[in-house]
């Protein structure tokens, strides 16, 4: 319970948020979901992973990322930011926009579980390799 990774999910669809939350909590993660970007930055403290949808009302996932990155700029531990999309053109632009990676096959909950686990492993491997 103590070491459950915290995952923040940002999407404008409540149905998608509900499904993702239910599935990831089954895997033992603590999941915070929000459809609102305003005030969402407070959830980032202690988060290991942030999953962001691209097509948000009034802004793109890149805008959300930018605001989140400003919010955690001074934090000692920065979460990994991943884009969640099935759009290949958006996916291709993710790294350029500043995301650490992309989760594909949106809607496939099983695939999401595997990709989340992989992203958290990448973060741990990077932390292990980083100089003390």
């Amino acid at each position, binding site marked *: 319970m103590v070491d459950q990774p915290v995952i923040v999910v940002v999407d404008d669809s409540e149905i998608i948020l509900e499904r993702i939350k239910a599935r990831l909590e089954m895997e033992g993660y603590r999941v915070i979901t929000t459809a609102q970007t305003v005030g969402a930055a407070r959830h980032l403290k202690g988060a290991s992973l942030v999953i962001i949808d691209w097509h948000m009302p009034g802004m793109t996932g890149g805008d959300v990322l930018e605001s989140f990155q400003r919010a955690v700029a001074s934090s000692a531990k920065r979460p990994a930011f991943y884009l969640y999309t099935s759009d290949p053109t958006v996916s291709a632009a993710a790294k350029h926009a500043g995301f650490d990676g*992309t*989760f594909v096959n949106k809607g496939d909950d099983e695939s999401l579980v*595997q*990709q989340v686990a*992989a992203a958290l492993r990448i973060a*741990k*491997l990077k932390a292990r390799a980083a100089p003390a």
Partner: protein
Amino acid sequence: MGHSTDPVKRSPVRAAKGFVSVASRMAIVIFALVAAVSALVAFELTRREEGHSIESKRLAGSMLTELLADSIAPALDFADGDAVHASLTMLAKNHDVVDAAVWGPDDREPLAELRDKGPLATASREPGIRVARDHIDVARVVKSPVGKPLGTLLVRVSLAGERAAVVAAKKRIFWLAFALSALVAALLTAVVRRTIISPLAALERAARRLSRGELIEVENLRLDEIGSLGHTFNHMGRAIREREQRIYSVNTRLQGLLDTMRQAIIVFDGDGRLERERSRIAEQLLGDAAGPNTSIVDILYPVEHASGVEREAFRAWLGVAGAVSRDRFDELVDLAPKEARLHRDDGDDRILELEFRAAAGDRDGRVMLLATDVTSQRRLERTAEAREREHQKQLGAMRRLLAGGGQVFVRFLTSARDRLGRAQRDLGSPGPLTQESVEHAFRFVHTLRAESRSFDLGAVEELALGLELELAGARHAPPGSAPLVVMRKSLESGYRELSTLLDDAEALFVESSPIGRRVLEQVTVSRADVDELMGRFGARNDDLGRLVSRLAARPFGELTSTLGDDATRWAGKAHKRVEVVVTGREVLVPARVAERLSGVLAHLLRNAIAHGIEPEERRLELGKHAVGRIELSCREASGGVEIRVHDDGAGFDTTAFAGETLEAAFEPGRSTRKTADELGGFGVGLGAVRDELKEIGYLVKLRSESGIGASVLLGPEGRATEGAWSTSPSSS
């Protein structure tokens, strides 16, 4: 040499430039040696022979000169030149004499000479014998009988014959020596070939065949060094074969061990390249995709089918795992993927559970993957999860129904069954349906579909919709036509299925009801009316009194419906976990007991949680299930009902009542807890419970078994309440 199939002759060493056979070397050496020895011998022999010849000639010349000197001495004494010349002329018949000349004692010119102006004119006349290359000069002083020197005689004898004989002998000897050397060399070469070269070639052929894995032994070995080498070779061959058989046997056992394991076992190097070792299941699972040097990344996460982040994560892990030493590999196990989806071209993708270990071997960086195919298991789990979610969804729907009044649903079930029965009868005798039957059926299923939607009966709704669509099509079919025959069959099987679904819905409804099957008999009545009935007729000891009492009674399940949630909440505050199991939900509890029972049961539950049920960690240490179990049971008894509250906790802690019976627990102020909180510990509960129930003629008894659990038994006065209580296997 040439196009031989003999492996010896095709040997690259033999084909190399500068190869010279041992036999040839020996032949050359032997030839040279024999020739040199022969030449030396011949030289010495001819030299000696030449010496002998020259000596013989010298002696002959000396004798001849002596004789001649003696014969010309008188003539020379009288200075008779003619006589001297005549004597010299006699020498001309001797072909060996080249020239002869005589001088007087003071003559500078020869007195007589065999040849005029011959070679002796300038030769030395010093007495003696002088041997030159091709002649011998013998000079002698001619003396008179009294010893008076009369002159000098010089005779030159030729050595040409001897020299020519020596040259001829040398030539003969040369050719003889050459022939002898060649013969000896050839003979020795033949012997060496037979005794050394051929056996060595045979050994070489045998060695090559052995290197190719053939079973070969050299035969016909002689008793010499080569034969000894052959024996050693055969021994070496046998030893190699034995070792190979042992290695093969070990490998076969190991491979058999790998193959009997239910996991696919693969080994790869630090760069992720597959190595040869693998189990049979790995071969079957991966097929041709897993050849040597294939990348494990491409097998588990092919670019076309896997997500980029999974590939990236595995590559990153591989980079670290391949570089770390074997004894530090365990640090990385948690960072490896636990599961992967193996894509197959036939569409039958497999889900693999992955376990990585450092592979044993002569170098670090090798990794062994044990992959278990859990596809069937996952599918079952997902199917079960989906069904459970569906079931919970239906239960939730039923609970909402109950909360809103289950009687409406009961009326629906009753009505639906009646209409279904009429619809089944309306199908009539076998044969095509009539249009009227079609219309009746259509209206029935159409109404049923709407009703089932309102009660969240998804399966019923779906089936009704299917029948409705078929009936819509059959509406326009000509009378007596085949579609109407088919429609009959569809309706018959559809109605049977509907009946089953309605039964299932009822069973689900009863299952989710706290009062079980009694919910089907519930009606809504006014509590005030019931109380009035009880007041007027409840005390009567006749049928009417008993009927009224039954009306006022309440199902045990109704009284305990909220206790499950309450117990979970109370346990949570005490950092414990419990589940409450209710049996006898349908048993009717008399009104006077029901009024007090909810409070009593709540009190006893709190007691059980506070005093009996252990914390989760303690329960696990004791080998118990982490979640404590509290059973609330009710059964009919003469004069009322018997109720038992049983927990599988620690039992009553009798050290608090040292030396006394459990009855002491009922005394005011007595508690087994050292501290008090909202759950208990004030020492007032059990006594109050007993007093309250005593007012209505019920007794309370305690039973406890240390470490096993405790029971509180409630029953009418005069009942033993000792009959066996069965343990319920299910929870409500």
